[in-house]
């Protein structure tokens, strides 16, 4: 059982309020090292410069969407195996299928409750302590 406090997380969402809500949910789960960025364009160099264990990224973002971000992460020799959880809208089944093909680890459908985020993280990492 991994300790949530040992997992470094990058949260990427263009909506400040949503980043704050996810941050609070992660803190409640015991995560300590939480970074966030308002765009994939900013998050990509940040996670390359300072690696994280988990990326939680929105799909629907301007400039670089979540799929493009996932593709860029997977194509990178250094950070390519970082756990990637995508946040999608309920009508985005095609996006989920594309994300699965690109190697997403899991996804959470917005709108979601904090418990749903916990469940999806634990399906990848195992039960958090």
């Amino acid at each position: 059982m991994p300790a949530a406090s040992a997992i470094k997380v990058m949260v990427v969402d263009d909506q400040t309020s949503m980043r704050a809500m996810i941050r609070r949910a992660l803190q409640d789960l015991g995560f300590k090292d939480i970074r966030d960025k308002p765009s994939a364009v900013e998050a990509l160099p940040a996670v390359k410069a300072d690696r994280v264990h988990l990326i939680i990224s929105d799909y629907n973002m301007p400039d670089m969407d979540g799929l493009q971000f996932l593709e860029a992460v997977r194509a990178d020799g250094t950070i390519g195996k970082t756990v990637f959880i995508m946040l999608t809208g309920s009508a985005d089944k095609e996006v989920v299928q594309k994300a699965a093909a690109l190697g997403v680890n899991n996804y959470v459908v917005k709108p979601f409750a904090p418990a749903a985020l916990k469940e999806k993280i634990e399906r990848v990492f195992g039960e958090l302590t």
Partner: protein
Amino acid sequence: MARVPIVQGEHHVAGEPGLVISTLLGSCVAACLHDPVAKLGGMNHFLLGEPGDDNPVPKAEMTRYGIHAMELLINGLMKRGAQRSRLRAHLYGGASIVANLGDIGQRNGLFARKFLQTEGIVLDRCELGGTQARKVEFMPYEGRVRSSLVRDVPLPPVAPVKPVVEAESSGELELF
């Protein structure tokens, strides 16, 4: 004139001249967002600010929360060509009509104002609070809003909050 009525948990985005989006509010809040360059606008109608760990609302009803209702509205506008930086907002509702609902209307209003401030969206008009229901009519193409206080008009029923029971099949794709 085309009219699109919305109720709690719904939102609508449109850019057709003359179209009116309308709703009836008690303690709920409606945000009207308008992009004056793209000539687009949209309105939502939400019941609560944001979910917590102890939230009693089932997943299918999460759009009752403002944080999600606002995102759906903003994303809907951006998909149609609006730019977040150009959005102008109006807020309505958040009244204290039913005594046993406590300060839910006030908290909804506070959430909405804080959300706009956090997201850097300009608030042009704010009619929150009071003790009466409001009827709001928004013309998204023109960016015009008409709000009126309503006396002795029954509000749409608020669906009872059900315990969290996730459907066995939510229609999601099972990846793992």
